[in-house]
């Protein structure tokens, strides 16, 4: 599904990624682990074409994501659900509206929005927070809302970039369980983290990065 072919990314004088090659199959749950600055976030940005590689190619199925025009890139992003460490919710929209916005973006009807949003909020246990703004919610609740937004359009891939980075252990456990459940239902998940505990609790494939290089890939741990 995702193909990184000898990808390097250099920011002025700092190398963020160096000759990275790996593949993610459809339906996999891949954790990318490494210290801060190891290149995890750059990797996710390259999949979304937020950044251009200095060298190499990144494919989403048969599409070279960095060759896409603006409109096609928008369509590609609709097939990917994103979860960020800092949640990246729309602060002036309520929980309901944050999810509705993602549905509007893909052209869903008002009826579909009215029926699906409460359902997904219930799934992440946020029914009681429907009309609250992100600023009125706890970190764990905001991250659950971000996950709800990421899965509402049934994307083929979920990229979770340090989703537990700002959360306490209880909330971390909850988020990991939700992501596992999403993966069990068939969605490919790429999770970046520097938390060893998270990886152990997932117990799936782990790619370890250091100084922009892939130093270990445990494909066998399925």
């Amino acid at each position, binding site marked *: 599904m995702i193909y990184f072919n000898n990808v390097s990314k250099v920011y002025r004088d700092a190398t963020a990624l160096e000759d990275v090659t790996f593949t993610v199959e459809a339906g996999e749950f891949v954790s990318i682990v490494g210290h801060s600055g190891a290149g995890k976030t750059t990797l996710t940005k390259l999949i*979304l*074409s*937020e950044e251009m590689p200095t060298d190499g190619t990144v494919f989403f199925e048969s599409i070279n994501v960095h060759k896409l025009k*603006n*409109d096609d890139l*928008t*369509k590609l*992003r*609709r097939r990917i659900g*994103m979860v960020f460490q800092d949640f*990246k*919710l*729309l*602060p*002036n*929209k309520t929980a309901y*509206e944050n999810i509705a*916005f*993602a549905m*509007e*973006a*893909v*052209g869903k*009807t*008002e009826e579909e929005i009215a029926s699906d949003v409460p359902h997904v909020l219930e799934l992440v246990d946020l029914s009681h927070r429907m009309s609250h703004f992100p600023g009125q919610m706890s970190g764990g609740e905001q991250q659950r809302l971000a996950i709800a*937004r990421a899965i509402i*359009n049934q994307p083929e891939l979920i990229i979770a970039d340090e989703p537990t980075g700002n959360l306490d252990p209880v909330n971390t456990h909850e988020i990991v369980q939700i992501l596992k459940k999403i993966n069990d239902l068939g969605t490919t998940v790429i999770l970046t983290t520097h938390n060893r505990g998270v990886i152990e609790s997932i117990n799936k494939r782990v790619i370890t990065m250091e100084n922009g290089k892939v130093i270990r890939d445990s494909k066998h741990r399925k």
Partner: protein
Amino acid sequence: MAITVLKRIIKAGFLNFKRGGVVSWAAVLVVTITLSVITLIILLQAVLHFSLAQIKDKVDVTIYFTVGAGEDKIMALKSSIEKLPEVSQISYTSASEALKLFRDRHSKDYPTIQALDEIGENPLGGYLNVKAKEIGQYESIANFLKSGSALSLDSASIVDKVNYYQNKLVIDRLNTIISGAQKLGFLITLLLVLISIVITFNTIRLTIFISKEEIGVMRLVGASKMHVRGPFMIEGAIYGAVATFFTLILFWPATAWLGRNMTNFLGINMYDYYLANFLNIFAILLFSGIILGVISSFLAVRKYLNK
């Protein structure tokens, strides 16, 4: 589908405005200032036009005829002058009317009236008063009178004098002052409007800068450019519409005060002018406000939309 999208964009624009709080009202304030400058310019232009029209109205050319000049000849000259495209108005005062006006004007000046009575007959000739459409056109009217075309009617013998040549210097000077004032007025207007537009654009750019991250997130969840940009443009239009409302309210008491206290100085009652042109001013402000808001938002969002 397009109607649904439009409805969503409009609704989101109104919600953004409502939830924008202080930032929204700060933008409205700046647009109100811009629209106030535009209203002020409209009112100043009215004063300028009124004053210039009054000055222009005071300028004319009078053709005095000799005593006893035949009325048919005068009428023939009048109709040939009337045909000139530069002439806006021409009036004839006969010798007897001229005498009556002279007597009225000097009714308290007994020696003059007495002298007039002594003469017995009317010493005054009739005259034609000619007004041109523009001040610069008096010269061509005077040239016409001097040229053969007027003389061909055999009117040279009846013309006593044309006062254009005596007033030429004053008329020329006035013409220079009026066209200078119009040019200066236009330049000042242009400058003020430009400054206002730049200030408004920058304020709206700042309000959108606050939403920079939000725009990025919207793009990341797959929103199209129009879906992101639309609500900001609607918000810009709302700034313009609300600011128009405030500006119109603000100028109501302001023009009333000017009308009560400054009519003599300005030569025009501002309050009457404001009320008489209210719909026009409203249309100009609403159009300027909305266009300013929408275009500023469009340009400001563009910067953050590319990725």
